[in-house]
């Protein structure tokens, strides 16, 4: 048999049918549902008199329009309250388990799937959310879909899909202190651009990827979409099996052993060909930060903001100039030392327990700079409980940060958490588009370490200066 990549293996394992002149019909093992991209899909089912084919492979939670204020408070925004209520009602109507606002399992959809053991190697995972690639960390083929496709999956557990190209992202060597998974992915996006992975699925491999924990792998895979790739994955290994084993929804006993035996066949065969590939030297990476209005506009933290005058392509030059105008930044100047109004630590990229531990390591025994608003938002209620059991919440509160309930929060700014016009934020989230974190707000994307360091100093800071 021709050597295959893990991407091709998972694809081949899920083909229900392939008819000439049509895309393959692909079976979906896990469908994650949230309040924002599902109401019109449920409406479509009702209009056709259809049921949900596999409620047992479907799970729902509220995260996007969900406030991160104490759960005892009502949702003040009536439109958001109606949307959250609609999800819970639709789930009840169609027999889907929903971890709603009162649930101890509630959280960002891409945090709770892995946490509950729902995300497993070799699966196909979809969600009406572009950051579904997060689940690729487990060696799953996981990608975001639109609402029409949400309806297709609810009704049939299948999707019509064309095969993607395969793209090998090899990261070799060891990361230096202060450099994290976030810096790997921001560096990749800066190198290939936000359309660099269009039409492709990434396989992240190499010794630096192997050395990452599951949570770090999730951070890397999460932002695959910011390079244009619909999905990105890491082949499963013992790190994966150790993480998955014993979680609420994973197989036990003999069923577990046989599942692991199957998963061990997933990694890419020797000699398999990728359509594209890139190699990154981990030891050469610095902390990364974005300066512009898309995630590809990133630089090592010690570098200067680029100059539009150096770019020959007119549209590209105009895009950069427009981004710098929006960000009110001067070309050729460093970002280091630039004042910061807000620090946001959270989102499906960086809200897991290890992210919070990293931030706490920097904040412990220090005070947030006067005038800086710092929000720490755990990715799930379980992450919140774990952080509180470790006393991290106290470290955050003592430093002067705001410790909140689980949700997407200021990553998407549709839940009350947002920047004011003109404010600068160092954010651990995934998008710095104009207005993404609030109309007129300006976002510098970075790691939890960089965010925490900047919270202390009140300016963009190289965390390595605080690690001695």
């Amino acid at each position, binding site marked *: 048999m021709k050597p295959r990549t893990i991407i091709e293996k998972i694809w081949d394992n899920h083909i229900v049918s392939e008819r000439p002149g049509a895309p393959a019909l692909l079976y979906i093992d896990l469908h994650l549902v949230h309040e924002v991209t599902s109401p019109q899909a449920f409406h479509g089912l009702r209009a056709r008199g259809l049921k949900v084919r596999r409620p047992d492979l479907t799970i729902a939670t509220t995260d996007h329009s969900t406030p991160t204020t104490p759960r005892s408070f009502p949702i003040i925004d009536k439109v958001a309250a109606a949307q959250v209520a609609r999800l819970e009602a639709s789930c009840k109507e169609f027999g889907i388990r929903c971890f709603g606002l009162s649930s101890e399992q509630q959280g960002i959809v891409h945090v709770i799937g892995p946490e509950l053991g729902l995300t497993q190697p070799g699966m196909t995972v979809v969600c009406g959310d572009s950051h579904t690639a997060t689940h690729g960390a487990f060696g799953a083929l996981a990608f975001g879909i639109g609402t029409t496709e949400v309806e297709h999956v609810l009704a049939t557990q299948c999707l019509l899909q064309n095969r993607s190209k395969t793209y090998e992202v090899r990261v070799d060597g060891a990361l230096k202190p202060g450099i994290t998974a976030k810096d790997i992915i921001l560096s990749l996006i800066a190198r290939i651009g936000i*359309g660099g992975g269009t039409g492709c699925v990434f396989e992240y491999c190499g010794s630096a990827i192997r050395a990452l924990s599951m949570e770090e792998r999730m951070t890397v895979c999460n932002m695959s979409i910011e390079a244009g790739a619909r999905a990105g994955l890491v082949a499963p290994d013992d790190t994966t099996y150790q993480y998955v084993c014993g979680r609420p929804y994973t197989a036990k006993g003999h069923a577990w052993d046989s599942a692991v035996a199957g998963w061990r066949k997933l990694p890419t065969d020797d000699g398999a060909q990728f359509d594209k590939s890139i190699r990154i030297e981990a030891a050469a990476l610095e902390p990364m930060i974005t300066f512009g209005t898309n995630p590809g506009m990133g630089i090592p933290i010690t570098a200067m903001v680029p100059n539009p005058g150096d770019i020959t392509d007119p549209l590209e030059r105009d895009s950069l100039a427009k981004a710098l105008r929006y960000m009110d930044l001067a070309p050729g100047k460093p970002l280091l030392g630039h004042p910061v109004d807000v620090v946001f630590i959270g989102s499906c990229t960086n809200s897991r327990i290890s992210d919070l531990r990293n931030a706490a390591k920097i904040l412990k025994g220090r005070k947030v700079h006067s005038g800086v608003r710092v929000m720490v938002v755990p990715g799930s209620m379980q992450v919140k409980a774990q952080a509180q059991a470790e006393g991290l919440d106290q470290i955050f509160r003592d430093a002067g940060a705001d410790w909140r309930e689980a949700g997407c929060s200021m990553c998407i700014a549709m839940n009350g958490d947002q920047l004011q016009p003109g404010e600068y934020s160092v954010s651990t989230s995934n998008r710095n588009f104009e207005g993404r974190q609030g*109309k007129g707000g300006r976002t510098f994307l970075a790691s939890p370490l960089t965010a925490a360091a900047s919270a202390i100093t009140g300016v963009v800071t190289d965390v390595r200066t605080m690690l001695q």
Partner: protein
Amino acid sequence: MTKFTAFESHLVPFPIDNLDTDQIIPARFLKTISKEGLGDQLFYDWRYDADGKPKPDFILNRPEAKTSKILLAGDNFGCGSSREHAPWALLQYGFRAVISTSFADIFRGNSLKNSLLPIVVPHDVHAELFGNPNVTVKVDLAAQTLTLPGGRTVQFPVDAFAKHCLVEGIDELGYILQQAPAIAIFEAAHPALINTAA
């Protein structure tokens, strides 16, 4: 689904690369549970001032834009979030096609499922159109051609199945539902690894 027929229109030029779906429709408008009423929110933060009044200079507020069916966009249009509200808003404004050199994957798929046609043209044609946007072009999906002034035609690629569905007015979900027997056979051969049932 209505059949996608050929049409002519002048263009609305929007010369910005990497336009993301957060710009096409900001997230705060995604709290709706309906597909309707999104046309007025298209490019909201660029289109209206702080008081919610239309900015007269913004291209979508000009009278000629309101009668156009084609947005002429920059490279990598529709990147970012998977929100299908983006094509819904473009359609409800009045667009039936977007011309660019490339589209983000999820946006392209979402558009095709809603009869908003993403048309990929070569860089020279793209530059030529931006150089002289005050022209009327003809879009013929069945022939996969864009007819430029003077009668020159440019072929554009489109997924064969998506084209078939659009031209014939075929609903994709109906097509998948017809394959229920094949889905049942697959399920019988592949026991699920999880069970989320209440």
